[in-house]
C-alpha cells in the first residue's frame, strides 16, 4: 500500500505535463464504444459497465451532467487534460473538504485539478493513516483515505491511454519524424538515441542544465518528459482492453502490454486501432470513430450485448416502480370494495415488475455463466423476485387482494433493501474457489433463498391477518381460512429452510470436512428453522393461541433479517461480509418497529375481543 501511495506523488507531477488539451466540446456517439470488452475484477464486461461503476465510485451517479457514463469515460481516457476539469469528485465530508482547503459549494463536487493541492497537503496524514487498521479509523479519516484512493484510481484512468495520445513536446529536428502529432510510442522509437544524446551532453557539460545550449536543453527536457510519462504510467493496469497475446482469456492495459514486454505482432493492430480511436475522438471525426469501433468489435470474441441490455433496462430498479404502482392500485382496489379494474391493474403492474426481475435474473445467469445467487446482494435480488411470485400464486388461490398487496409490498421493500445493499459500481462478482460450484449454488443456495422467500410471504400474510383483525375488517370465517393458508405457508417455509440448511451442511461436509461448524450463517439458518418449529409445535401442543401463532409468524421477518443479513455483521465466520454501521442500525430499527407494530396490533385485537 505504501509504495502504491508514494507513486501517487509522481503521478500528480506527471499529470501536469505533456498531454495536449482538446478544445472542441463535440462528443461522438458511444453506442459501439460501450460494447467494447474490458477485463476488471476477473470478469470481462462491457466498457458501459466499467464506465458506470467508475463514475459511481467518484461521483455517486451513473451519468455526468446528463451525459452517458461512456461519454465521460471516452473523454477521460482520450482527452485527459479537458476531463481533469470535470467536477466529478463528490466529497460529502465537511471536515475532509476543510482539511483539503476546498471551497464550500451547494453540491460538493470538485474537479481533479481543484483537488491536487489538497491531495498534496493531506498526503503526509494519509501516509500515517494507511499504516493503521481500517477499523481504527474515524469516519473523517476513512473519508480522507477514500478521496486519495479515488484520486489515485482517477489518475490511472487519465493516464491509461497516454502512450497513444499526442504530446505537447518540442522535438529536436533529429528526432522529428514530421508526423502531424507525436505520441509516447513515436518517441519510444528514438529512446535509445535520446538517452545516448543525453549521456553525451552530461559527459560534455556536466549535470547543470544551465550550462547546456538551447538545443541540448531541448533534448534533456525531452528525455525528462519521456521518463515522467513512464513513471506516471508505472503499474497502470486499470484499462485492460487489449487481449493478452500470451495468455488466453487475459486482457492487458496498453501500458501493461508495452511495459511488460508482452506486446507481439498480434498486438500491433489492436494498439493501432486504439490510437486511431483516440485521434478520431479528439478530432471529432465520427466516420473514423465508427469505423475504428467496428474494427475493434470485429476483433473481439465476447458478446457484451446482454449486459448492455441489462444496464439499460435496470430491471430491478424499474421493477421497484411497478411494484409501487401495483401496491397503490391494490390499496385503491381495497378502498373501493375490490373494484375489478383496479385489481387487474394491480395484478398487471405486479406481473410487469416480476417479468422485469425475471429478465434481470436470466441476464445475470447468462452474463455470469452461473446460478443467480452467489453473493449476499444476489440473494436479495433473488428473494425479491420469488417472494412476490409466491404471493401472486397465493392470490390466484385466495383471490382476496391480500396476495397482491403482499407481493407488491415485498417487491418494494426487498427492492429497496437491494438498492441499499448494492456496492458502489459493478455488482456482478466472480466467486472465490469454494463458491465456484454450479451444483451447490443451484441446490443449497437456491433452496435456502426460496426458504427466505416463503418466510417473508408468511410474515407479510401474518401482518395482514393481524391488521385486518385489529381494524375489525374481517369475518371469523375469512380469518379461519387465512390462518389455514398461513400454516401451509409456514410449513412450506420450514420445508425449504430445513432442507436448505441441511444441504448447506452437506456442502460444508464436502468442502470443509464437517457437516456443522456453528458458523454464524449456519446458526442463523438454524435459528429460522427452530423458530418455525417452535411456533408450529407450540400451536399443535396448544401452548400458543391463534393470535400468538400469528404474532410469531409475523415476527419471522425479524428472524429472517437477522439470519440472512444480520449475522454477516459480526465479521466472523465463513460468510462474513464485514460490519456495516448503517445496516446494523437499520436492522435494529426494523426489529424495534416490528416489535412495536406487532405488539400494538395484538393489543388492539385483544381489546376488540374483550369489548365484544
Amino acid at each position: 500500500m505504501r509504495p502504491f501511495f508514494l507513486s501517487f506523488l509522481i503521478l500528480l507531477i506527471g499529470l501536469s505535463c505533456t498531454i495536449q488539451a482538446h478544445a472542441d466540446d463535440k462528443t461522438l456517439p458511444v453506442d459501439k464504444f460501450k460494447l467494447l470488452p474490458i477485463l476488471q475484477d476477473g470478469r470481462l464486461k462491457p466498457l458501459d459497465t466499467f464506465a458506470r461503476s467508475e463514475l459511481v465510485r467518484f461521483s455517486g451517479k451513473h451519468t455526468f451532467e446528463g451525459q452517458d457514463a461512456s461519454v465521460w469515460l471516452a473523454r477521460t481516457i482520450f482527452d485527459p487534460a479537458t476531463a481533469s476539469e470535470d467536477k466529478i469528485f463528490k466529497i460529502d465530508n465537511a471536515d475532509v473538504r476543510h482539511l483539503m482547503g476546498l471551497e464550500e459549494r451547494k453540491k460538493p463536487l470538485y474537479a481533479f485539478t481543484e483537488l491536487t493541492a489538497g491531495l498534496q497537503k493531506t498526503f503526509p496524514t494519509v501516509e500515517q493513516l494507511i499504516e493503521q487498521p481500517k477499523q481504527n479509523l474515524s469516519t473523517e479519516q476513512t473519508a480522507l483515505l477514500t478521496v486519495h484512493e479515488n484520486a489515485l484510481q482517477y489518475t490511472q484512468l487519465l493516464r491509461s491511454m497516454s502512450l497513444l495520445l499526442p504530446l505537447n513536446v518540442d522535438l529536436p529536428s533529429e528526432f522529428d519524424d514530421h508526423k502531424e502529432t507525436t505520441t509516447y510510442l513515436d518517441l519510444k522509437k528514438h529512446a535509445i538515441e535520446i538517452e545516448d544524446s543525453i549521456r553525451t551532453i552530461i559527459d560534455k557539460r556536466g549535470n547543470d542544465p544551465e550550462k547546456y545550449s538551447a538545443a541540448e536543453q531541448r533534448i534533456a527536457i525531452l528525455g525528462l518528459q519521456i521518463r515522467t510519462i513512464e513513471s506516471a504510467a508505472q503499474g497502470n493496469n486499470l484499462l485492460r482492453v487489449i487481449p493478452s497475446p500470451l495468455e488466453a482469456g487475459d486482457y492487458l492495459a496498453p501500458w501493461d502490454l508495452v511495459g511488460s514486454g508482452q506486446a507481439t505482432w498480434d498486438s500491433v493492430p489492436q494498439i493501432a486501432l486504439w490510437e486511431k480511436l483516440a485521434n478520431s475522438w479528439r478530432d471529432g471525426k465520427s466516420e473514423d470513430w465508427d469505423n475504428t469501433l467496428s474494427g475493434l468489435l470485429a476483433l473481439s470474441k465476447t458478446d457484451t450485448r446482454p449486459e448492455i441490455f441489462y444496464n439499460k433496462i435496470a430491471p430491478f430498479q424499474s421493477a421497484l416502480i411497478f411494484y409501487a404502482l401495483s401496491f397503490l392500485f391494490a390499496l385503491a382496489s381495497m378502498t373501493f370494495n375490490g373494484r375489478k379494474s383496479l385489481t387487474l391493474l394491480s395484478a398487471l403492474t405486479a406481473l410487469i415488475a416480476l417479468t422485469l426481475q425475471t429478465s434481470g435474473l436470466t441476464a445475470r445467469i447468462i452474463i455470469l455463466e452461473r446460478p443467480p445467487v452467489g453473493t449476499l446482494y444476489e440473494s436479495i435480488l433473488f428473494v425479491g423476485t420469488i417472494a412476490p411470485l409466491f404471493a401472486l400464486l397465493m392470490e390466484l388461490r385466495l383471490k382476496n387482494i391480500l396476495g397482491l398487496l403482499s407481493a407488491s409490498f415485498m417487491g418494494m421493500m426487498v427492492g429497496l433493501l437491494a438498492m441499499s445493499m448494492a456496492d458502489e459500481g459493478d455488482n456482478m462478482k466472480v466467486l472465490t474457489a469454494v463458491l465456484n460450484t454450479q451444483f451447490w449454488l443451484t441446490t443449497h443456495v437456491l433452496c435456502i433463498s426460496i426458504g427466505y422467500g416463503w418466510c417473508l410471504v408468511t410474515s407479510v400474510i401474518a401482518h395482514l391477518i393481524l391488521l385486518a383483525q385489529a381494524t375489525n375488517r374481517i369475518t371469523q370465517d375469512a380469518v379461519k381460512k387465512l390462518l389455514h393458508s398461513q400454516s401451509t405457508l409456514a410449513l412450506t417455509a420450514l420445508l425449504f429452510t430445513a432442507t436448505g440448511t441441511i444441504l448447506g451442511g452437506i456442502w460444508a461436509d464436502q468442502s470443509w470436512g464437517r457437516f456443522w461448524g456453528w458458523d454464524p450463517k449456519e446458526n442463523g439458518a438454524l435459528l429460522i428453522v427452530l423458530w418455525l418449529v417452535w411456533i408450529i409445535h407450540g400451536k399443535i401442543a396448544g401452548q400458543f393461541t391463534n393470535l400468538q401463532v400469528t404474532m410469531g409468524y409475523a415476527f419471522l421477518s425479524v428472524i429472517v433479517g437477522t439470519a440472512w443479513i444480520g449475522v454477516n455483521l459480526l465479521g466472523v465466520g465463513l460468510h462474513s461480509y464485514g460490519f456495516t454501521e448503517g445496516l446494523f442500525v437499520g436492522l435494529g430499527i426494523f426489529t424495534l418497529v416490528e416489535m412495536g407494530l406487532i405488539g400494538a396490533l395484538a393489543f388492539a385485537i385483544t381489546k376488540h375481543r374483550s369489548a365484544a
Partner: protein
Amino acid sequence: MQSYLASFLKNGLKLGQRLARPDILFWVLPLMMALLVLGTIAQKNIGLYAAQENYFGSFFTMVGPVPIPAGLAIMGVFLVNLLCKFLFRSDWSWAKSGTIISHFGVLLLVFGGTMTALTSQEGFLMVGQGDQNNIVEDYHSRNLVVYDANKNALVTVPHEHIHDGMTVSIPASAISLTIDKYCFNCSISMRPQNEQEGWHSPGSRMMLNKAPADPQDEKNLTGIEFTLKGAKDSDINGKYLTFVGFPKPPTLDIDDNHTLTIAMERAKRPLPFSVKLERFERDLHPGTDMASAFTSWIEIIDPETGNNFPAKIEMNEPLRYRGFTLYQSSFDLNGEKPYTILAIVDNKGRLFPYIASILIALGLILHLGIRITSQRLAKKKETAA
C-alpha cells in the same frame, strides 16, 4: 416376576409418555434459540473454536456469573423428548406419516451429530510437491513431547495438562523439567540483558510472554519456558524454551546414551497410507489474485493393501479412501516448491446427515401434500353438500 415386569413396563410407558409431551419441546426450543444467539455473538470476541467448546460442546456454560444449560444438556433433553415422542406418542396413521418420517429424520440427524462429536477426528496433512507424507497434525491439540535420539517419544503431555510449576520427569533417567512459564498463546520478545543468566541459547536472547488467546485457535502459538535438572553435566542443566513450530527445539546430549529433544508440537497421528503430491495448481480469475480453483494431483500409496493409485483433490471434490476423507484445505506457495494442505477427517457419522436430510425433506413434502389434498377434499365435500 411377571407383575414386576408388567409394573416396570407400565411405569416405563408412563414415564416415556410424560417425556414425550410436546410442552418439553416447547420450552427446550427457546432455550436452544437463546443459546444459539449467545454462542453466535460470543464468536465475535472469543472466536469460533472457543464458542463452540463453551456454548455448544459442553453441558453448562456461564453467562456472567449465571450458569446456563449449554448445547449438550439442551440437545440431550431434546433427543430424549423426540425419541419418546417417536416411540410412545406417534400417531401411526397415513395422515401423520409425513410427520413421523420427518421426526425420524431429525432423530437420525441428532444421532449422527452425536456420533460425529464423539468419534470424529480432524487434522491436516501438509505435503510438498514430489514428497510423500502420512502424518496428520491436529488443528487444536498441542503436546509437550520429549524424544530420544531415535525419535521415540519418551513423554507426551497434552497442552491442557501443562501449567506453571509443573514437573515432568523423564523415565529411566534422573532428568526432570520444571515448567517455569506456560503460555497457550505466546508472544515473543527480546530478553533483557539482566535476565539472561542461567539461560541457554536462544532463550538467553528471546523470551516468551503470555498473550491473550487468539479467537482463531490455529493461530495460537503455544510454548513453554522450563528448567532442566538432573543432568550429570551441569552445563546442560539450566533454562530453555520451546514452542510450536520452533525449527530448532532444544536437543541435549545428556550423556553418551541419552540425547533428548524437547518439543512443543501439534498432536500427530499416522494415516494407514501415504499421500504423495505430484503437483499443485492454483487457477486465478484472469487479471486478479483471486483464486477460482485449487487442485492437488496426488498419488495414494497404501502399503497395507498394496493399493497405489493417482487421484485429484479440488475444492468441493474431496477424495474418500478407507473411511478417511481428504479435502483441499489450503496451500503454501511461498517456499521453493509448492505445498498442499489437505484436511483429513475420519468421521463415522458422516452418512447420517445425508440420509436424515432426505427423510426430513420427504416427510415435510408428504405432510404438505396430505394437508393440501385433504383440504381440497374437504372443500369438494363442502361444495357438494
